[in-house]
């Protein structure tokens, strides 16, 4: 098992190399650069631009630039942002990654506590009213674009009802302790629901079909035949087996949450990695774009690895070596 994990971790290295070379190459192929593109001011001597470009290393050949970037990243230095003058990329990411992390955890929490019980109930009583309701919700949840759902949520809960804040991650900077926690939680509800909608819908459908499949299997019939109560058949035998594929999916959820966060955070002006990514793309802040791409790639690979590891933990029949 350990050997397997180490081997998988080693494969990360070439994959991340290819990924960063790809993004780096794309950036180089782009017309213009951040100096001449954004801060163009006819009063400034072109020589100043030249000096600035030289200082940022933008005049070096591509492979030299790439190698400089890689060696710095190895030392934990992602460079300086072009737009936020004098601020390190790691600093910019550092102050926002917490927010995205909270959003992700909160979304996952809602997704699980809503979808799994409903999925189980639907399978227990198929074709009941609640089952039809859940199926309908599932279809809508998968078809509605999450930014549109977010806007409707803001319209209803922030504007019409005034229950929840529509943007940001805290309402005033002075809060501490339990007040700060509750305030942050309030700001998480709408983005969390929006980000979790599609996931909730698909997990619910998945859970339903999984439980139905297990309920139809022979060992469940045996369990019933030996006189177990419905309750213990469901909780002891069915759920444990039905959960196996769901737990695996959670590993892949990392990538889905991270990419969904880009648009959802945009809708709610939530100060996380997603909004940072959007603004850096708008400003062509290449060091930040590179760093975020690298980071997302790493987390997604890690999520996929976790999925495989979970799989072997919950299902002892699966062994990696």
């Amino acid at each position, binding site marked *: 098992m350990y050997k397997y994990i180490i081997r998988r971790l080693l494969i990360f290295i070439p994959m991340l190399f290819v*990924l960063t070379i790809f993004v780096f190459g*794309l950036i180089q192929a782009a017309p213009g650069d951040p100096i001449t593109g954004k801060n163009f001011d006819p009063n400034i001597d072109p020589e100043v631009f030249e000096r600035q470009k030289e200082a940022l290393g933008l005049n070096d050949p591509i492979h030299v630039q790439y190698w400089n970037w890689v060696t710095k990243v190895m030392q934990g230095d992602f460079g300086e942002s072009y737009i936020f003058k004098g601020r390190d990329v790691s600093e910019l990411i550092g102050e926002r990654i917490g927010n995205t992390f909270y959003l992700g955890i909160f979304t996952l929490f809602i997704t699980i506590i809503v979808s799994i019980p409903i999925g189980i109930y639907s399978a227990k009583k198929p074709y009941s009213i609640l089952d039809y309701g859940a199926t309908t919700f599932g279809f809508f949840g998968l078809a509605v*674009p*999450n*930014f*549109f759902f977010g806007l409707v949520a803001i*319209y209803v809960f922030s504007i019409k009802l005034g229950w929840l804040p529509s943007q940001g991650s805290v309402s005033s900077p002075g809060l501490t302790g339990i007040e700060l926690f509750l305030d942050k939680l309030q700001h998480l509800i709408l983005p969390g629901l929006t980000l979790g909608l599609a996931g909730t819908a698909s997990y619910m459908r998945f859970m339903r079909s999984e439980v139905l499949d297990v309920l139809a299997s022979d060992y469940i019939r045996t369990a019933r035949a030996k006189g177990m109560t419905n309750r213990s058949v469901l909780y002891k035998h069915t759920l444990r087996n039905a959960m196996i594929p769901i737990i695996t999916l959670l590993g892949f959820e990392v990538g889905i949450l991270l990419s969904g966060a880009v*648009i959802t955070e945009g809708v709610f002006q939530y100060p996380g990695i997603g909004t940072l990514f959007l603004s850096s*793309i708008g400003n062509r802040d290449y060091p930040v774009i590179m760093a975020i791409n690298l980071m997302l790639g790493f987390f997604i690979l890690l999520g996929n690895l976790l999925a495989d590891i979970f799989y072997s933990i919950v299902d002892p029949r699966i062994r990696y070596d």
Partner: protein
Amino acid sequence: MELKQQEAMDTNIEVPIKPDKGNSPFRIALKRFLKNKLAVIGVFVLLGIILAVTFAPLLTEHSPTKSNLLLIERPPSEDHPLGNDSSGRDNLSRLLYGGRISLIVGFSAMIFTLIIGVTLGSIAGYYGGKIDAIIMRAADMMLVLPFLVLCLTIVAILERVNVGIFVAIIAITSWPNLTRIIRGTYLSLREQEFVLGAKAIGASDFRIIFKHFIPNAIGPIVVNATLMMATYIIIESGLSFIGFGIPQPTPTWGNMISEAQSLRILRNSPEAWIPPGLAILTTVLCINFIGDGLRDAFDPKSNRR
């Protein structure tokens, strides 16, 4: 039956002989599909939407791109049933013409992805070996980054995007999933005897792929193509919403909703941004129903339905 035929032949009278229905796989699939009510409703509603956006000029006389400074953010009136947007353009005509762009983007991105995915998947699955390894490693690479992030990065770098470029970006970033599915199907087909038979009578690789492999893999191809189109419509609207998709003034449903990023429009003119949202929802819902119907129709295991 046979007797009747015999008689007919004897007397030289033409008796219409009904072809054996239900034997061709396509007919079985069609029958199953038509039994699925949601899928059939989906087909009809989607056809309605397609007709509405195709004949947009007959339904509204306003131009979707002409701004009128006097009508900025006007509430609905008799002449403009859905009001006007922040540049004074008619929302109803933008909804109809925007639907054209959204559907065209979704459809053509799907076709392009199909071309790339089927070609690469066929090559990888049919030939195997080194070329297979190269294609599949490339696919793994592309799957490291979430599709949306990759799209955004490319859009950011290109700066100027139009419908054609946008479609190309989607196709270039999203082929790996389809390629994997097709390769998987081919790997099992490759071992079957009719392929050996085709090779033995000297059929070319091209002929074997087109005449034997693709028809056998048509189920997963069609189902995935349908669901891909729904995803692309959502992706297009999402990217246009955050301002990195099809640029203004070209109307798309996503572009229309992006007006609601201004809190004033969000609060005061729900008639401007809710209809395009519902249009996306309805279209995607229909396509998903059709996709589900097709999946059940093509799946030989779904007899229980």
